[in-house]
């Protein structure tokens, strides 16, 4: 069985890689997940409307004026890392480890970075910590804050609350 923390990253990555569908919604009914999600946002796992979920995903993560789930949209200030560095890191990792990463998303996309983090946690935990520091921590907090503000579907607000708890900004962990 995969490591719990790794599985959490993989689960969160799934929210950004594609729409919430019936499969994902049913997975959220696993008691440990449902209870915690409900604790964070009461009622969030109660009902599911696939069309509405698809529209919400598109509004938030596909169209402009949403909350693009890519590092490049949220990194602040000058210095390193920047999205170019993160893209390079992901591509170099894919090449070095021969990983089958989602190819329908940009390399600095949360739908790529979070599952990659999950793999590293399972297989190379030391590298995982550095990866989180380099590729996720610099931008997840502002992204999550914007997502929390813009999301209409409660499940995305839950994810937006979990992300900064799991990945604190650089220097605060």
């Amino acid at each position, binding site marked *: 069985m995969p490591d719990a923390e790794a599985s959490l990253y*993989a689960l969160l990555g799934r929210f950004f890689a594609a729409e919430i569908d019936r499969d994902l919604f049913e997975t959220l009914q696993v008691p*440990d997940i449902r209870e915690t999600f409900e604790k964070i946002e009461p009622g969030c796992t109660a009902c599911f409307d696939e069309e509405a979920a698809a529209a919400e995903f598109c509004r938030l993560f596909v*169209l402009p004026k949403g909350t693009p789930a890519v590092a490049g949209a949220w990194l602040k200030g000058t210095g390193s890392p920047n999205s170019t560095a993160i893209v390079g890191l992901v591509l170099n990792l894919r090449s070095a480890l021969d*990983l*089958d990463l989602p190819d329908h998303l*940009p390399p600095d996309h949360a739908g790529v970075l979070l599952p990659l983090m999950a793999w590293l946690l399972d297989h190379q935990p030391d590298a995982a910590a550095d990866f989180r520091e380099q590729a996720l921590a610099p931008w997840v907090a502002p992204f999550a804050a914007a997502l929390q503000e813009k999301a209409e579907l409660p499940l995305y607000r839950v994810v937006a609350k979990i992300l900064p708890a799991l990945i604190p900004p650089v220097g605060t962990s």
Partner: protein
Amino acid sequence: MSEIKRRDLLKIGAGAALAAGAGAAAIPLVRRLADSAPPAIDIKKLVAGKLDYTRAKAVPTICFGCTTHCGVIGWVQDGRVRKIEGNPLDPNTQGNICSKAQGMISYTYYPERLMHPIKRVGKRGEGKWKRISWDEALSEIADRMRPLREGGVPEEFVFHYGRDKTKGYTKRFTNAFGTPHRLNRRSICSSNRRAPLMSFYGREFEWETQDFENTKYIVNFGGNPMEAYQGGLYMMHRIQKARVDGGAKMVTFEIRPSATASVSEDYFPIMPGTDGAVAFAMIHVILREGLQDEEFWNRWSNLPLEKLRESVKDYTPGWAEEQSGVPAADIERIAVEFAQAAPACCTMSNRGSAKHYNGVQADRAIRTLDVLVGNVGKPGGFCLSSLRGWAGRYGQEGLPKLSQPGPKPPNPKPWGIGEGYDEEAFKKLPDFVQERVNNFPEKWKKKYFGELATPSEYPLAWHWYQMRVGQLVYPYIKEGRQKVSVYMSFTLGASYGYPEANVAREVLQDESLIPFHVAIDIGYGEQAALADIVLPEATSLERWDHHSTNNYGLVPYTGVRQPLVEPAGETKSVQAILQDLAKRIGGGMEEYFAFESEEAFYKEWYKNLPVSWEDFKRRGIWYDEGREKDYELYERPLTDAELEGTAVEGDLVMKGGKAVGIMMDGKAVRGFPTPNRVINVYDEIWPEAAKAVGLPADDVNASPIAVYDTVPEHRDLGEDDYIFSTFKWNVHTQGRSGHWKYHAEIVHTNPVFMHPETGETLGVQEGDSVRVSVYRPKGHTYRGGEDGIMGSFENHVRFLSGMHPKVVACSHHVGHWEHGAVGASKNEATGPAEGTGPGAGNADPQAAPEKIWWSKGRGGIGGGVAINDALPINPCPLTGGQNWYDNVCKIEKL
């Protein structure tokens, strides 16, 4: 819940692990493709760093930052294009580039770029979408299109593009489908300047190629190559070299002190629409002073010099001063200086002279100046060089033939009555249109393809080739002149950038007029927002294109746009999209798209180049370095091969019923690619077209020889009437660059520029807000003569000494409401990718969300105002070119 604790996280993780362990498909896990044990990883060593020229790969390609298309080199490192440089092998640019080249990086890595096909789920225009797969998207589109083709009404599919540089690939698709409706926006841009050139010099020379490098004198009527001219980058370094190293002079007539005006020896703020008056007066002076090249004129023009003299006898410098405001003494001086510099002198003109009711005739007068002093085709003069294609046309003799791989679909039948015509489509047209077309001469009947592609009221928009009248597409659809079942827009921003853009939006919003709209574009702009399905396109850094255009070095060259990186996300090139769609539509369409890969298709296209494909890709550019420059092409003797099968009839060398040369001094030479092989200063096509559409014979556009008349709505200008004009900045490209962060930082708003004296007259100070209200035109044009204000916009004032005091002007690139955070100048949303602008090679990130510092939310000036709703649709009679610069307006202080 106030705080999420670690145990909460682990609890979710445990649940997720349980589900994943049970094989839940909802939690996809990353897998290794290799069976071997993974190597230990040191993340810090894998972090991509600064651009390292020893590691980065240099790939040549062709820029698509604007319409000039310069040879560039992209540096690719760690999967990203990091920097763009000029390609020194490009004979046009000679290695130069402008800031817009870096825009390709901006739009490729813009975080709000559309990466997936999407389908509307709310009302059209409501902004509600869902992501769909390519399979779903293309299947639905094919299912909508197939019945039109199978049902014999392919013309109900309309393909409307803004930026198509596939050099005929999209035409392959529309032809294979069977529709003539491959519409464009040429009339918005340059048809008024192309038509006079083609009238004078023939179809092959719709764009001139001055030999700036060797010139001594340039007279520029409203061209702005230092900022915006198509081909400007090719021109600007040559102009500067001629000025700085060669002592050349440039004279510019413009309505504002543009960058080009600023490097001119003489700049005259000119009354809009009066460039022709100055040109006529120059002709008058040159003839009066006997400075014409009579030998050249008599040899190559089709008008006796005395007739020209007669036609300009009243166009004195004093008269021109009254019209234009340019001092008569200066016109005298410039005319003499220009003629004395001949043949190393040239004119230049563009939208400034041409986009007026009398603009076609103004450009014909300007073109006459060159013929009169005999500079045509001479070193330093007004030259004509091979344009696109390389299919063996005039000026392309001896070049390797390049053409799209076969099999090529046939063109659709023209619409009309009789054998060889599409009668069914024709009979659906309104009666008055059918009657007009039935009375057309045969030469036009054979070129008529309905009102959207070939509007019958504007025959000179399609006499030479289909320039079309894009700004009338939406009104015509609204009027019911053409039924549309599937409308596909491609890189088109009509609903933002066309005149009366609100009409475009109104029609696109109306599902009874446009039942199904597919938009193909690299971004989600105002046009895509009104679609039913949006297909995300690969950018110019991710796809192939053929490139060939005129070379100001006067040696034909070709280049290739090639992908530097894979298309991002799920985006696809338009070629891949249309290939897939053709296969799905089937019914034989797929036969024309049966190539194995895009690269294979382009490799075949270039197969006749005398270099290997790999070497061509490595260089990005090819030309014959030993080829003679394109001087005096018209004097070159026909070769023995060209003479084979010809017969001399009168002066003309005929072959297959067509003149291919002309006898001069007892020798057969090429002449010009016109029907009579000489320069048509006089052309009956203008009165013939006028008569065919009922344009009065005394209208300025109906004259066979260039004449001057004041723009109708400028005749009785009141004291408080002003002319509203638009212009372009050097860092923007039409409405397609408002979301390029680094360019938007430089120019993000569009104040109303006016002369300080104008401000004083109006009682406004710099920074005051004003309302600009525009009237409809008064000539023989769309809704011409209707009273009342057509549209208004409000903006703040900037003073600019050097403006013509009767003119107010705004740029038109900004004021978007789509295109994401930067395009709409909203700081509240997201910023662009950092480190992707100029200097990005060394990653200087500076574009976090709060960096849209000009947004009103941060107390900035905001993102400008969309002005195109307030500008009337105003096609020039006969050619249909949009008269952008005739607008009469009133200005109120707010």
